[in-house]
């Protein structure tokens, strides 16, 4: 067994060597964000948004001096983020990249993002974005912007209007009413919803609504608060529904899950604006029977929403033309032309204040019985609690939380226990990456 080890060791040391001599250089950081003097530039932009090429074509036709070349790949967590990290290490990242809000901090701690706050054009555009979406890219720092907000996922309640009416159950406006309705739905043979055991983002959105702040960064160190009182309250609430077997626990995003909605076994879904499309495609037999109401509230009469999903367009450190890159990113995420195309091609719901009044969102949607569902989401978008910050190691936090949730769902623990474990492991992961953390 001696021989085979040698080539492995050689390969490993080569990797270390190559890595060592191609660390990203820091000089780019100092480059002020001003218009370049080059006659014309070509920038690369990596994004996995379906149909992005057509949107970019519109820009390229109108801006011969700033040409954008699209690169693509699988969605972020399935490979493209890892590619970004590899490319940063190799010193050849694209100029622009598509990065979801919850992944931005991990690029920030790796010093991979250009702070666009220094760009005059970006600072001027800040007012066009809904405040909480700007928090997602500035991390709450004044005059910083590590990306331009692209889309958002304000949450609301999708529910089977026909079934609620037939069984004379009132549409729940608070979480207490939702739990009460769950009993009635169960008595009628259905489940009020499906608890997402493996997609932690939904739980994050629910906690966000309750006022949780999972992470904070005071400039020196990170604080992890997966067990803050708000999150614990949400976890205990869902644990109660699970214990009373009032929710189903089919793994999300599977055909089984589609089937639960298509067959009328699951009656509601607290989800983001893009969920409208997930239902209509996953549960085609239920066309016309759904409606959308505001998210149930923790306090009667409240008007608070959560957010699930959303992404930004970031400029990588090392880009030789940050000003031009920012110029494109701003057009992509604020112009009516681009936002309309993004809505049509990829169901992206804009992060701008004006975005909600795009004509594409003014129509009634047939699948939802002709209801103008986007009015509900436009309202929700303005009610998302500001100041929610993601941590720099979300991939691992999601993984441990989801492991714990799966165990809890099969009866081997509780959701609060899973969060306590995720809290410990997140702190450990931060430490192991030498990221300062306060305990």
């Amino acid at each position, binding site marked *: 067994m001696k021989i085979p080890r040698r080539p*492995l060791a050689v390969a490993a040391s080569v990797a270390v060597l190559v890595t060592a001599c191609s660390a990203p250089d820091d000089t780019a950081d100092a480059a002020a964000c001003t218009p370049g003097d080059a006659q014309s530039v070509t920038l690369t932009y990596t994004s996995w948004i379906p149909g992005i090429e057509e949107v970019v074509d519109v820009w390229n036709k109108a801006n011969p001096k700033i040409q954008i070349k699209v690169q693509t790949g*699988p969605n972020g967590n399935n490979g493209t983020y890892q590619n970004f990290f590899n490319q940063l290490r190799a010193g050849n990242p694209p100029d622009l990249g598509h990065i979801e809000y919850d992944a931005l901090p991990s690029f920030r701690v790796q010093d991979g993002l250009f702070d666009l706050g220094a760009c005059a054009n970006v600072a001027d555009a800040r007012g066009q974005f809904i405040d909480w979406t700007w928090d997602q890219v500035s991390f709450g720092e004044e005059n910083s912007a590590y990306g331009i907000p692209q889309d958002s996922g304000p949450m609301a309640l999708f529910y089977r209007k026909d079934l609620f009416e037939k069984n004379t159950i009132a549409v729940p406006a608070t979480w207490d009413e939702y739990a009460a309705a769950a009993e009635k739905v169960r008595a009628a043979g259905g489940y009020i919803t499906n608890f997402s055991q493996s997609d932690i983002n939904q739980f994050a959105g629910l906690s966000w609504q309750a006022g949780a702040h999972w992470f904070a960064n005071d400039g020196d160190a990170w604080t992890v608060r997966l067990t803050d009182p708000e999150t614990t309250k949400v976890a205990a609430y869902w644990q109660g529904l699970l214990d009373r077997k009032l929710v189903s626990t089919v793994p999300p995003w599977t055909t089984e899950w589609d089937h639960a909605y298509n067959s009328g076994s699951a009656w509601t879904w607290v989800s983001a604006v893009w969920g409208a499309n997930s239902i209509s495609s996953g549960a085609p037999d239920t066309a016309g029977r759904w409606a959308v109401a505001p998210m149930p509230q923790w306090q009667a009469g409240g008007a608070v929403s959560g957010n699930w999903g959303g992404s930004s367009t970031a400029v990588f450190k090392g880009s030789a033309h940050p000003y031009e890159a920012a110029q494109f990113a701003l057009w992509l995420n604020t112009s009516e032309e681009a936002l309309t195309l993004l809505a049509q091609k990829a169901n992206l719901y804009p992060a701008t204040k004006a975005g909600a009044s795009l004509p594409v969102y003014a129509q009634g949607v047939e699948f939802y019985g002709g209801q103008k569902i986007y009015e509900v989401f436009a309202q929700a978008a303005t009610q998302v609690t500001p100041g929610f910050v993601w941590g720099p190691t979300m991939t691992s936090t999601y993984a441990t939380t989801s492991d714990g949730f799966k165990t809890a769902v099969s009866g081997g623990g509780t959701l609060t226990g899973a969060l306590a474990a995720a809290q410990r492991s997140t702190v450990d992961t931060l430490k192991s990456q030498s990221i300062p953390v306060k305990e």
Partner: protein
Amino acid sequence: MKGRPAAMTVMGVCTVYFLTPIWWLFVSATKTRADFTTTAPLWFADVALVDNVREVLTYRDGIFVRWMGNSVLYTAGAALIGTLLAAMCGYALAIYRFPGRETIFNVVLGGVLVPATALALPLFLIFSRAGAANTFWAVFLPSLVNPFGVYLARIYAAASVPGELVEAARIDGAGEVRTFFTISARLMLPALVTIFLFQFTAVWNNFLLPLIMLGDERLFPVTLGLYTWNTQVNQVPQLRGLVLVGALLSVVPLVVAFLLLQRFWRNGLGTGSVK
């Protein structure tokens, strides 16, 4: 004869085990999107295979066709040249005596044990330095080398090319290169087909290397393209059906290659074992 029913049972179970997923894939590929979630997974509903295939082939100006073409180019090209390289290398190691021969062979053997996955990132960093990441060559060149092929070729050459024959060719005045191509390579043919098939499947299924190397979707092989689609299903639900049909189409070339070459292959495996 006593063992026969038992053997048949094992074979039967294996057959069902291996064919069920393919059957599921085939059945699913024939369904409309609505039927896919609502009807029994292992039996047909309304057959819409032709429409589905047309949709895959024309979606976004036929990008799928391009991916298939890329895969064929990467795979057939790399497997052909790779087989030639492996054959020459294995032949040289088997026939010629020279200092360091065993060391070279051992290093190559060691290479068999290094998973391709472990090499993808170092390769990416090297190609980045050379400014050749995100090009055709970034996937093609690393696919050419195949240590397992060298190993097989050496074993087969030692077994099927008699030293006396090579000696005779030399006496008749044939150069080494000519001897290799006109005599030895022919004797090794069954082995070469085996190596070709191994490498063909390995490159066709190689996923991590293109994933890390390529950003331009016009260079994607079909595996990476389908994977990319699959990760976009939440945003564009239409893609779920396309991924299924695409996956079915993407195994067709492999099946064809095996059916055409299996005669040689069986031959090759047999030859080695008897000698």
